[in-house]
């Protein structure tokens, strides 16, 4: 009861914070005003490059870099930055949905968007350029662009694949960052936009099936370089720096950077009912959460299994070494494993496993994440179990060994069952930590529960409901788990006290 009460109070406090007062107009009216201001950009974009020129100047300009355009906009709305430099078309989309924002008239130079292709992949580059030329010639590309760049609402898709395609040439994987309307964004649980549809049209021409991988903007080039994706299509401007690492196709459209500021009008404050509708009902957005929850549970379950297997193995090797002095080499290996895993952040481990170890393998992200978290958790499970084994009375080992049982049998029938029971609370705690740790899966573009909340947040510009919902779902999972463990613990205890006859 106390728990629920605490929860409700927290919710109310957060509501008040969430509905904080409106922030006034930005003090930025032209490029000349940028000095000394806080500039928001999306990390790795051309806007970032422009803003970086001001960074660290005498006036104290600060550049805030966000991984998504939407996050930069949210920060602008609630006053965390004074302006946002971003590509023109997304900017137009953003102000269409946010009446409290405006675009300054001033513009930066014209840029060209093109498709990113790995260096050396000449045949694909040739194919893509040929397909692109055809799409421009027959008007398909213009048709797609006109569909998305409109003053009205965008409805449905622009391009329909011709019938009878058998995709005999396999898959074409496109890396993108789907928070950049109208080029790429989530609608109705799939990624749409100019880039997405153009890429599909290109794939169709190559007789390949398009697969879209959503990831951080600054991961796209690495993904294409490493072979995780064939193409990077993400409103990517051709720049000298990028050309050093990657090739570009012929440009398919032009754009320019613009500055978005707060115009002083108050943004429409949605009622709770509208908020709920926007966050969950509209566009079937609740499905992001359902899918995310499923992925989170799946990753956690597999990771726990992997973690327990690794943990048991390592703990037994280490304890055997401690007790008998055998298994020197294995023990040394286990020691290295424990040192590395416990000495580095889980997120870095996840990124290394995805981008380095499985760089050119086509393996599902859920599998990669489960493996990464399993390997990570195994180290902690191992140390918990080893502590449990070492803290057992030495007499348990001696009692078993004096009967002629081998070390292995002693471990299996006497030591590990007792260790498991004694360490259950610590293990449960580790699993709770693990479940919450999976929240970083978004870094490899995996749509877990946290990522689902983020997608909804970036589509609706609402922080409160998506974040609270995600938090509550995690809380419920953890509470269920704790209750289950408590029950198991009780049962194990009862077992030993129970007299049958």
């Amino acid at each position, binding site marked *: 009861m106390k728990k629920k009460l605490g929860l409700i109070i927290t919710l109310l406090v957060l509501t008040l914070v969430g509905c904080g007062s409106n922030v006034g107009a930005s003090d930025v009216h032209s490029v000349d005003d940028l000095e000394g201001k806080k500039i928001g950009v999306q990390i790795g974009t051309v806007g970032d490059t422009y803003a970086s020129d001001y960074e660290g100047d005498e006036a104290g300009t600060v550049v805030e870099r966000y991984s998504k355009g939407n996050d930069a906009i949210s920060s602008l709305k609630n006053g965390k930055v004074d302006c946002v430099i971003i590509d023109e078309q997304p900017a137009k989309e953003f102000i269409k949905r946010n009446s409290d924002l405006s675009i300054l008239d001033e513009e930066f130079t014209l840029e060209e968007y093109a498709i990113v292709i790995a260096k050396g992949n000449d045949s694909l580059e040739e194919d893509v350029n040929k397909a692109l030329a055809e799409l421009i010639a027959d008007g398909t590309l213009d048709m797609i662009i006109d569909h998305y760049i409109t003053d009205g609402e965008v409805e449905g898709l622009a391009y329909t694949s011709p019938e009878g395609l058998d995709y005999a040439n396999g898959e074409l994987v496109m890396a993108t960052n789907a928070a950049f309307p109208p080029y790429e964004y989530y609608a109705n649980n799939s990624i749409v936009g100019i880039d997405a549809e153009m890429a599909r049209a290109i794939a169709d021409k190559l007789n390949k099936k398009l697969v879209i991988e959503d990831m951080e903007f600054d991961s796209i080039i690495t993904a294409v370089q490493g072979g995780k994706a064939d193409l990077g299509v993400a409103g990517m401007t051709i720049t000298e720096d990028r050309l050093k690492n990657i090739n570009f196709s012929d440009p398919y459209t032009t754009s320019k950077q613009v500055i978005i500021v707060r115009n002083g009008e108050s943004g429409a404050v949605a009622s709770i009912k509208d908020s709920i509708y926007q966050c969950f009902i509209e566009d079937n957005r609740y499905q992001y959460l359902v899918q995310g929850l499923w992925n989170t549970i799946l990753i956690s379950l597999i990771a726990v299994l992997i973690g327990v297997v690794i943990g048991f193995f390592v703990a037994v090797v280490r304890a055997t070494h401690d007790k008998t002095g055998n298994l020197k080499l294995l023990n040394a290996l286990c020691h290295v494993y424990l040192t590395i895993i416990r000495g580095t952040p889980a997120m870095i481990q996840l990124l290394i496993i995805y981008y380095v170890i499985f760089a050119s393998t086509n393996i599902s992200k859920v599998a990669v994440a489960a493996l990464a978290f399993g390997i990570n958790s195994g180290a902690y499970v191992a140390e918990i179990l080893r502590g449990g084994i070492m803290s057992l009375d030495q*007499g*348990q080992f*001696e009692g078993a060994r004096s*009967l002629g049982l081998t070390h292995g049998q002693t471990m299996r029938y006497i030591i590990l069952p*007792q260790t498991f029971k004694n360490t259950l609370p610590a293990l449960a705690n580790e699993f709770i930590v693990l479940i919450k740790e999976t929240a970083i899966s978004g870094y490899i573009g995996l749509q877990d529960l946290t990522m689902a909340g983020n997608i909804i947040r970036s589509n609706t510009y609402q922080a409160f409901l998506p974040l609270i919902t995600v938090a509550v779902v995690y809380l419920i999972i953890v509470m269920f788990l704790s209750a289950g463990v408590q029950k198991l613990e009780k049962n194990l205890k009862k077992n030993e006290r129970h007299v049958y006859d």
Partner: protein
Amino acid sequence: MTKECIIKVENMTKSFGTDVVLKDINTEIYKGDIIAIIGPSGCGKSTFIRTLNLLEQPTAGAIYVHDVDITHKKADINKIRQKVGMVFQHFNLFPNLTILDNITLAPVKTGQMSQEEAEKKAMELLERVGLIDKARAYPDTLSGGQKQRIAIVRALAMNPEILLFDEPTSALDPEMVGEVLSLMKDLAKDGMTMVVVTHEMGFAREVANRVMFFDEQIIKEEGTPEEVFDNPKSERLQNFLSCIK
């Protein structure tokens, strides 16, 4: 009459680091022997008895069980331990197993008996010590005396040739000492070979055929109970005996 030698200790030395606990011990243990080991605290009684089944590895010398040197790397120590049972001061029952499983685990897992045979044997032994109603109970529900009797039964279930006891009654409340000692006396009557580290001088005098007094890193004095208790030769033994009277 030559007696069958079960264990032979040859020039055995045991030290912990630089701390020499036992120095150059020589002795033989024959079938049917009941040896009581006495001596002041810390003189190495436990260490000695634990080297006999290699729970402690001797620093030098050899220990033969029949003709096998168990200190040799190639010796199959698990096989030998099956024949050399041990009962500990703190029982060391397995709290995660029922009494029955405590008793049957080793005979079954070492391949000596089938589960059925082991259970039959366990029930016979439990019957004998009057604890058959505890077969399905867990160790935590037993009294100290009951636990120690179960520990003895557990060792007996392996059909050992010799049983080692390290102060089997020292952790018991006084009123429970009797039940354990009387079980040990029964075993003695049946001809079980036993080595018992004990502070129960009455038991040593009544049951043992040999008494060893450990002191100053060696077996300081050895003889029949009469020789050791009634005619102690060394001053150390005289002092020891006068202290515990």
